[in-house]
């Protein structure tokens, strides 16, 4: 049994260029997922995904049910927000979100009533194989599903059956290459069946021919669990043969979409293209489970698994947390109450973002909450040394950039140059900063450079739009002036004509009038500055051509 099992697990030795092997510190790998208690107040920011923010559709004082939609999406790249429990909306105001800026977003505050009455408006779709993919797609949008690996891109957008880009392969990302994080690992062990049904739903939706569940070799129990579950399901589930589990050597940042695709298919996603353009889509295992819940149970996304870890947490573990739960409350359940001299991270230690304090809610992108003592965090920021041109950063960069050069360019504000050296291809994996012996915060420079370039782009667009508006205004003013002048002329002429009429014969003024009309008409197209400028040089040039014509003839 074990033998066949091991044989059926595919092993790949292929790898991507660059990468590092950081200390993994997966101290919570054996900790079963616990369920968080109810906080006294949930805080739900109206934007928890990449894309446009939502608009609240409840008012203060409203009673809401668990799973009820409380903010609707505006625009295409957006998914709604749902209430994580039943209770009362107590206020809607700005509150800090887990964002490096520490800035706030309008948020809906819900006080739980402790009953957890579910909103049953969405019916389960058990026979998803017989359901139109478009309907399933709409369901996923309505359920607020966004990529739970951390990028939180609205999932329904990716799950599109498009005949121009037929999907060959679905890759299920169970890599979890960030140190400390074990939420996907635990989910694969505890919810393998749901994940596999989720895979089947996605395969039906996009028409994928096969699916690969990719897991690194530091999670052998997750590998076995997935494989066993596949075998158990194979009796009731004919399509399970098209799903395979693939074991990959542990390497950071293998979980990054483009790197993983390269490892598994040998194909590179061209710059500026999406994986679907080469017939691949990638989904995180947590998203697959959320898709299962949305379709099979009719439940919107209101909770997620969070790894609470770090050397400052007395009882690290994995926890099922409802969205909107204040982080302070989550940490408290793991024994961390005071935050003096503790660094908080939202996400993993490599790509996670530093939090200013714990008074922010858990959102759809919260895969990990880390609390570290100052001594354990690399205090790189204060002791940046000059680059010694060792080249380590370039060796480990998975997208083959030259990080030391790019950092110099960003530091010296040569942003256009950095852009021409493919700054935007940087996936901000942090491998370069990790290996730099001079403690240069390379990724931070890249984030700065990218932000400045985006800002410059916005300013240029605004300047361009302002210029057009100002030109239209000048045109309009010139036209109005000309029209007024023309009108005045006509009136004056009429007046003169009348005066003339009184004095002399009737025939002559008539003639004058028509002539004047003509001049007014002729002048009209010439109103704007631009056209005048355009017209000006032209009288000069024809003689030139005429003379040359004469000479040649």
């Amino acid at each position, binding site marked *: 049994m074990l033998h066949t099992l091991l044989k059926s697990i595919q092993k790949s030795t292929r790898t991507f260029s660059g990468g590092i092997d950081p200390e993994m510190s997966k101290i919570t790998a054996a900790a079963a997922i616990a369920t968080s208690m109810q906080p006294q107040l949930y805080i739900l920011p109206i934007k928890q995904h990449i894309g446009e923010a939502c608009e609240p559709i409840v008012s203060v004082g409203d009673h809401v049910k668990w799973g009820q939609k409380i903010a609707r999406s505006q625009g295409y790249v957006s998914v709604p927000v749902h209430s994580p429990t039943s209770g009362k909306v107590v206020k809607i105001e700005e509150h800090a979100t887990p964002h490096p800026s520490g800035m706030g977003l309008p948020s809906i505050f819900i006080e739980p009533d402790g009953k957890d009455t579910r909103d049953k408006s969405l019916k389960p779709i058990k026979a998803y194989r017989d359901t139109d993919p478009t309907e399933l797609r709409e369901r996923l949008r309505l359920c607020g599903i966004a990529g739970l690996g951390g990028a939180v891109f609205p999932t329904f957008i990716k799950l599109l059956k498009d005949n121009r880009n037929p999907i060959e392969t679905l890759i299920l990302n169970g890599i979890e290459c960030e140190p400390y994080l074990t939420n996907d690992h635990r989910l694969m062990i505890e919810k393998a069946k749901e994940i596999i049904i989720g895979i089947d739903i996605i395969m039906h939706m996009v028409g994928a021919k096969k699916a690969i569940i990719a897991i690194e070799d530091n999670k052998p129990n997750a590998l076995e669990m997935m494989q066993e579950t596949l075998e158990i399901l194979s009796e009731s589930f004919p399509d399970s043969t098209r799903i395979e589990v693939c074991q990959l050597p542990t390497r950071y940042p293998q979980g990054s979409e483009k790197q993983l695709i390269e490892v598994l298919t040998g194909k590179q996603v061209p710059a500026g293209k999406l994986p679907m353009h080469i017939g691949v889509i990638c989904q995180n295992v947590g998203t697959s489970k959320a898709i299962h819940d949305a379709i099979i149970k009719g439940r919107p996304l209101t909770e997620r698994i969070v790894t609470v870890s770090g050397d400052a947490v007395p009882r690290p573990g994995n926890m099922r947390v409802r969205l909107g739960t204040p982080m302070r409350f989550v940490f408290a359940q793991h024994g961390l109450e005071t935050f003096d001299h503790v660094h908080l991270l939202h996400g993993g230690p490599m790509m996670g973002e530093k939090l200013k304090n714990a008074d922010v809610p858990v959102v759809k992108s919260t895969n990990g909450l880390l609390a570290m003592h100052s001594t354990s965090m690399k205090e790189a920021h204060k002791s940046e040394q000059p680059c010694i041109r060792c080249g380590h950063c370039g060796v480990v960069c998975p997208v083959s950039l030259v990080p030391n050069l790019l950092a110099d360019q960003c530091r010296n504000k040569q942003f256009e140059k950095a852009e021409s050296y493919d700054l935007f291809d940087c996936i901000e994996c942090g491998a370069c900063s990790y290996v730099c012996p001079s403690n240069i915060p390379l990724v931070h420079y890249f984030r700065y450079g990218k932000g400045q370039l985006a800002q410059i782009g916005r300013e240029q667009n605004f300047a361009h739009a302002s210029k057009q508006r100002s030109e239209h205004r000048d045109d309009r003013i010139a036209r109005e002036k000309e029209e007024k002048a023309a009108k005045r002329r006509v009136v004056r002429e009429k007046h003169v004509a009348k005066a003339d009429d009184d004095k002399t014969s009737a025939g002559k003024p008539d003639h004058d009038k028509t002539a004047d009309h003509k001049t007014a008409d002729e002048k009209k197209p010439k109103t704007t500055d631009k056209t005048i400028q355009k017209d000006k040089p032209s009288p000069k040039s024809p003689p030139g051509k005429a003379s040359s014509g004469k000479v*040649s003839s």
Partner: protein
Amino acid sequence: MTYLLTTTAAFGAFTLFFAVILAIAGRVFKIEGNPIADNIESLLPQTQCGQCGFPGCKPYAGAVASGEAEVNQCVPGGERTMLQIADLMGVEPKTVEDEATAPMIAFVREDECIGCTLCIKACPVDAIVGAPKQYHTVITEHCTGCTLCVEPCPVDCIDMLIKPELLEHWSWPLPDTHRAQLAIERKGQHASHTS
């Protein structure tokens, strides 16, 4: 002698031939307006505020192109625009004396507005809407913050507010390290001894 004649005739023919080609090319590839002024204009922030001493960005661009104005007169453009213009004109950079304020937008206190339409006439980018004797309002996305509408308002009901920063537009600051600071300082020194 015949050599001389044929040579002269041949050169004459060539001359005529190329003259015709050049004349045609001159017509076909004629560049409208002043290309240098247009290039400079495309670098300007188009706020149309007049702080450069010219009635708008286009006149300033023209003045720089013809050498009547210095490269450092655009205040909202700041150092970046100055450097770009200096680069384009091939002249030494100069420090921009006035510091640009934080991005602003105009706001009409609507209950006080008498609907005189004077601010509409003042706005260089058509960012104010309203009809005679009706409230006027500023289209925030279009307002460049040039403050030209404040002065004409007879009842002083236009405020300049600091443009709210959007979460989406937030960007990472430069790392807070000694070397990053050094880079900024060196840049400053460079600018000051070149001007």
